[in-house]
């Protein structure tokens, strides 16, 4: 093989590998749908006119909908961290006795309500907040990727870009009646770029950050929906509140009549002092 031929082969290799990186690498989709999980055979939700009975203090379970277990999905440890963030945001409520994090390994993909109720019994919870998710990552190369042809550019030039869109949706179900109590979404969008050799790592980190930001967005919205649900329980009687036997929460509180009396007498005392002075 002469020198001319070797040079031609090398050039061809370089050009072809450059073309490979130039083209769009497409995207990734990670999805865990609450409908696919709870109604795997496409059955219709039963519409029974029952009013859920919520026994206070509630024991709440929280779990991610099991996904399709594809490579690149959020690891279980990361899922637990996210669920703990939601748990910590809602733990300090007088009507919640405990919030249990249910690992995804306790739920079967497309397991339906039967599977969810099994897990709820195992963790001894009355209601379950199911977090479904939909994350789409678009990846492509920008103009700077032309420097990848130099090979060194693949290490230092941010020629690959990603755009990660995440939706996390929390749906809270009563386990006895299987009815949806309330739901709230959280979203995030992350854009970034990286050199070719670090692209897998950078985009994986962006996907994790996408989930974290979506959960941060979800928490205040879930809180708003929870408060709205409490109002609906009070005014529209969408659920019946019952206190569990042996559970009696009391308080040392003055009522409005006592406050009114104290206010009037305090005003009288002030007037009297002013007159005396």
């Amino acid at each position, binding site marked *: 093989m002469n020198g001319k031929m070797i040079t031609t082969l090398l050039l061809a290799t370089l050009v072809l590998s450059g073309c490979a990186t130039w083209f769009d690498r497409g995207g990734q989709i990670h999805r865990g749908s609450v409908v696919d999980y709870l109604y795997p055979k496409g059955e219709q939700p039963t519409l029974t006119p029952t009013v859920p009975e919520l026994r*206070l203090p509630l024991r709440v379970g929280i779990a991610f909908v099991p996904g399709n277990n594809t490579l690149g999905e959020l690891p279980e440890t990361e899922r637990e961290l996210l669920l703990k963030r939601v748990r910590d945001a809602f*733990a*300090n409520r*007088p*009507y919640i006795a405990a919030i249990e994090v249910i690992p995804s390994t306790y739920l079967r993909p497309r397991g339906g309500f039967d599977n969810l109720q099994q897990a709820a019994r195992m963790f001894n919870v009355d209601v379950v907040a199911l977090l479904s998710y939909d994350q789409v990552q678009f990846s492509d190369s920008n103009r700077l990727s032309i420097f990848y042809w130099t090979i060194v550019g693949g290490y230092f030039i941010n020629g690959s870009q990603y755009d990660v869109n995440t939706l996390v949706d929390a749906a809270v179900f009563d386990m006895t009646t299987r009815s949806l109590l309330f739901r709230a979404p959280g979203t995030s969008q992350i854009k970034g770029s990286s050199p070719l050799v670090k692209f897998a790592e950078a985009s994986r980190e962006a996907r994790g950050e996408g989930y974290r930001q979506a959960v941060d967005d979800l928490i205040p919205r879930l809180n708003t929906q929870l408060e709205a649900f*409490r109002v609906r*329980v*009070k005014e529209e009687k969408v659920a019946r*509140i019952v*206190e569990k036997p*042996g*559970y*009696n*929460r*009391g*308080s*040392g*509180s*003055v*009522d*409005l*009549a*006592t*406050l009114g*009396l*104290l*206010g009037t*007498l*305090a005003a*009288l*005392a*002030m007037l*009297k*002092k002013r007159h005396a002075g």
Partner: protein
Amino acid sequence: MPVERMLLATLVVLLAAANLLPGEAMEWNREAFGEGQWWRLWTGQFCHWSALHLAGNLAAVGAIALITGRRIQRWLSALPLLAPLLSLFLLAAAPALTHYRGLSGLVGALIVGAALEGGAIGRLLGLAYLAKLGFDAMRGGSSPLLPEGISTTWQAHLGGILLGIATAAALRYRRAGRLSGS
């Protein structure tokens, strides 16, 4: 008086800690006493179910202070000592009670102070409060300042009044001791 100042400082610390730290760790909790969490005897009387609940009770303390005048200070300084006694009273007097939060039991003790040291208006307050307590004991009390599902524990108010009477007796005994000493 340094002891009184120290007790007032303790009151402020208790009030701040009980309302800033997580309520589940601070509240009066019958089960938790069995596990040795004795700090709840103090903090349970100072922590609250909500900011509105706290604001209502603090407004009541403010009004009592206006009625009683400067003499309220020694009654306020007694609260850190009365808090665990009231908690123990609740253990016996409200056997069904599992969780409790709120200052108004101790407000009952301050009302005794107002009745004794706040002149005619203070006495009027004492009488009206007793009538209200009787009404709550018969009918069961609730307050719009409280979150849903939580009722007013009238036994705490009764305990506060009884401890207020005991405090008045102790103060009188101390005063008599000082007079005979001099």
